[in-house]
Structures are given as structure tokens and as C-alpha cells.
């Protein structure tokens, strides 16, 4: 193919690729900021990653596979997310801990111009006050992301976890 022969189709293909790369970059950046906010204990900012009526759930794979709804953490709207953090800061009793999220296998599918469905694996390493770091939870995020004037936000985020027994308790969102 000679340099002179760049066609309209080529140009269109390049633009599509660029749009997709930009989208991938935006979604990846959203996820990186999300986990960084949790892992840095800036939990008061956590609800801001969601749309106002956003849904956040942590559900064992055992239930999800059977089509059963119950999980360990269900927030319907940002007010419930803020309540969770208020309870974590003021009411609940738990051991001091640090999370480190690792994610991989990001896949996404554009639903329309402002909606994307996205999935990725996660592993959360938890370190308690004894200084031991342990795999606390492994699972997969199932996200629906919407474009808002403030940028991409989660309309729903479901953490479906494989690690069916929760060690001691869970208080910090995944």
C-alpha cells in the first residue's frame, strides 16, 4: 500500500480506533482512581464515583450463579453509601486494616454514546495490625458506567466475589 493511498475508510478506521483507545483510557483511569481512593482511605470521596441513584453491591458468586439477590453490602443511591461511611467512621468496631486492590482483565462493551458495561478481575490484599498480608477477597467487578457532566460515573457496580467465606467481617467497600 502506497503512502498516497489513504482512503476515507482508513481515516474512519483510525478515528474509531482512537475513540476506542480514549474510552479504554477513560475507563481504566476511572477504575484506577476508584481503587486508589479506597486504598488510600479517602472513603468520604468513594460515593462520588457513583451517579446519584447509583447502585453498589458486594455479592458472593455462590448466590449470583444461582440468580439469588442477597449479598453482604447493598447501597441503593449515594445517601446509603455516605451512611455506610458514617457508620464505618463513627459506629462500627473493627480492626485497623489496609486494602491493596489489584485489577486485571478489563473488558468493556459500549451500550450507547454515554453508557458502557465493563468487567474486570480484582484481588484485595488485606493487612491487619499483626503486619501479615493476606488475600482477603478475589472476584470480578460488573460495572455499568455512564457519562455525566462531571465525567464517567458508576451507575451500578457489583463486586461478585469468589472467596465465599468473609474472614471475620467486612466494613470497607471493595
Amino acid at each position, binding site marked *: 500500500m502506497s503512502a498516497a493511498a489513504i482512503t476515507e475508510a482508513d481515516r474512519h478506521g483510525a478515528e474509531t480506533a482512537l475513540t476506542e483507545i480514549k474510552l479504554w483510557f477513560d475507563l481504566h483511569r476511572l477504575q484506577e482512581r476508584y481503587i486508589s481512593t479506597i486504598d488510600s482511605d479517602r472513603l468520604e470521596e468513594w460515593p462520588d464515583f457513583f451517579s446519584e441513584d447509583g447502585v453498589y453491591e*458486594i*455479592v*458472593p458468586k*455462590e*448466590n449470583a450463579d*444461582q440468580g*439469588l*439477590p*442477597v*449479598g*453482604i*453490602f*447493598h*447501597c*441503593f*443511591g449515594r*445517601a*446509603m453509601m*455516605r*451512611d*455506610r461511611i*458514617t*457508620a464505618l467512621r*463513627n*459506629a*462500627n*468496631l*473493627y*480492626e485497623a486494616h489496609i486494602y491493596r486492590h489489584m485489577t486485571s482483565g478489563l473488558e468493556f462493551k459500549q451500550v450507547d454514546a454515554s453508557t458502557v458495561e465493563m468487567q474486570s478481575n480484582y484481588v484485595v490484599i488485606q493487612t491487619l495490625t499483626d503486619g501479615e498480608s493476606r488475600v482477603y477477597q478475589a472476584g470480578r467487578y460488573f460495572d455499568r458506567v455512564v457519562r455525566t457532566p462531571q465525567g464517567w460515573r458508576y451507575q451500578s457496580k457489583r463486586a461478585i466475589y469468589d472467596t*465465599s*467465606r*468473609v*474472614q*471475620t*467481617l*467486612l*466494613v470497607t467497600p471493595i
Partner: protein
Amino acid sequence: MAGLPELSANGSKAERTMYFPRPDGSRIGYRIYSSPEIYQLEQERIFRGPTWSFVALEAEISQPHDFKSSFVGDTPVVVTRNDDNSLSAWVNRCAHRGAMVCRSARGNARSHVCAYHQWSYDTRGNLRGIPFKHGVKGMPGMPPDFDQKNHGLQPLRLDSYRGLIFASFSDQAPPLYDYIGPQMRPGIDRIFHKPISYLGCTRQYIKANWKLYNENVRDPYHASLLHAFFSTFNIYRAGMRFRIVMSDDGMHDWLAAFHADHEDGNAAYRDKVASFKEGLRLEHTALLDNVNEYDEFINTHIQPIFPQLVVTQIQNSLAVRQLLPKGPGNFELIFYFFGYADDTPEMRAHRMMQANLVGPAGLISMEDGLATELVQRATADGSDAAAIADMGRGVSDEQQIPSGISEGHIRAFWRGYQELMRL
């Protein structure tokens, strides 16, 4: 463990004194929570003894040939629904060489086949097939005196009450109806007054002895102190009215905390309890709405049926908890959530929202696991020290129960435990 005396069949006086310095259950020697000998004896005298262990909700295995794997104490068992809708339970251990037969947590199967040598069983545990039973190519197989009928999977007694399935290894256990007994049946009748719909389970693994959790659910004293969510967000008040009844042997218990519209308790509470945080309010207050569905307006219903079950209603969140010991220092706690079959979509959504209150991340219950771990961590050193359960000792239930500030039913539990364990 070196240095510990062998436990005799009926428990010597020295053993009794080591574990229970006082016979009234008000002192609990810490070794009872960590001793491997005690754990082994519990398997024999409690889990294989004259008790009924909760193993499943009928709603979990609603179709013919549905099955579920579970445990009675340490023993793996499978509960099945047969083709005629009857229920069976058997030890999940091949009659041939002892391999685990069923390797799925749940499912639907007409037969269960051992992976090792393909011995197969029907849903009742009857042995149906032995490969090469009659040998091959004229060579001999099983001997003529081997009678297949006598080599099924080990059955357990099974019975259900109001959709709760229990299994027992013991011929000495009374019928389930009587085991639950007249004091406890009204509580179960209350929660299971109409058909339920199973919504899923969540599991929590706690590094503590299983009896610490049995104490925890018989201990109203800790509720307003450990669980600050109540006081922080105004769910619960000292001064709230309680009713707690127990079975004659002290092993089963039913706590009911009645709904109170007023906030009279606040003032007295604020002065006495450090965890009270004035001014904090939930944004999403519907989390705590209780829509009354019963004759009595009860906000909290906690009902342990010894040894493996706790029936609970927290606001409109309904669940049964299954307590599975995993060695002296660990237990698994499984929460089975359900609603009623005739729930409206709104009511179902409300229950899903209130699923946040209990379970491994339960806003008002997550601390229980931690509290039991804190006891285990500090007491597993084999020391002679003992726990104190004196609150309300020496006064009648009528005087102490309405306030909830009582350890009377912990003492009753330990008296019943001593009798079962012959300690």
C-alpha cells in the same frame, strides 16, 4: 495436650472444677474454648449426641432430587429431596472406602456416584450400583456374603419443623417437635407463619470457639454496648422492653426486643454509654423502618436453637444462621436470608436494603465475630483463669430480663452444657 488429665466418661470432680469453677455457670474456665479434648468430646456428646442440628431450609431444596451439602458438627452430610418429596440425610462418606461422595455444595441429581470406584447411591443413600460386582470375564467379583442392601450411606434421623430441616445421629434425641419444645415453637411459628422465599446465603469465618457465639446470642447485655450502630443512629435504647424465654434445659433461647416509638431512653443512655454519639443521623432513614408483619411488634428476634441454629428477625430482615464448628479455634457462620413468598416487589426491595443490617458486613452485627475473636486470642494460652457471668445473678428472671441487662441465660446455657457433656 500434655499435662491435661484424660477426660473420664463422667467427668471427674477435678475436671469439672477446672472447666466450671462454680456449678451455676457463672464462672467459665477459659480452657473450655480451646481444649482439643473438649472439642472431641463435643463431637461425640453434642453433635453425635441427643441433639438436632439444623442443616437446611426446605426452600433451599424445593424440587425433587435437589440436594445440599452441609455438616453436623465435623461430619459432612448431604440433605436431599426424594422423588416423592420426602427428605433424606446421609453421611457424605462412601460405604466402600470412605471417600466423599457428593462434591458439590448444592444441585439436583437422581443418583450420587463416588468418584473413586463409582459406587452409586440413590437420593435416600441406598447403594444401587457396584462396578464389576459380579466380576469380569468369569473372574470373581464381590463375595456371595456381601449384601448390597446393608451397605448404603449412613443415614441420619431427619425431621423438619415449619420448613427448617434438622438431622440427628442419635436415637436418644426426643422427636424434633419436643426437642424444639413449647417455649421455642411460638417463636419459630411466628417467623415461619407463611411460606418463605429463599434469597441466598452469606458466609463468615471467625477465628473463635463456636461456644463463644452461642454465648453471644444469649447475651443481651452486650447489645447496646458493643454494637454502637444502635446508639449512634437511634435504633435501640437502654430502657427498651425485652422478653427472653428459654427451654427447660436452658439450651434454646428466644430474645424479643419490642418496638418503641418514643426516645425516652436517650437521656439516661447518653450519660452512661461512651458509644452514644449525639447528632449523627442516617441520611437514608428507611434503612431502619420496621413494617410490622406479625401479631407482636418486635424489632429484634434472636432465637438460638442449640447447637447449630439461630433464627433471626432484625426489623424486616429475616435470616437463619447456621453455626459450624471448625476445630476448637474456628467456626463458620452462614446466614440464610429469606422473605415471604407473597412479598410485594416493594417489600422485597425493603428486605434487600435491610440485608445490610446483618451478615458478615452487617451494620449492626459485624462486631459479634470480632468480639468472639478477641476472647479467643486472649484465652487460648491454656491458663486456669475463668470468665465471669454474674450480671443479674441471684435475682429472678422477672427482675432482670425486661431491661436486657442480664447474663442469666448464659449461665443457664452453661448448666445445660455441663449436663450434656457430663462435666
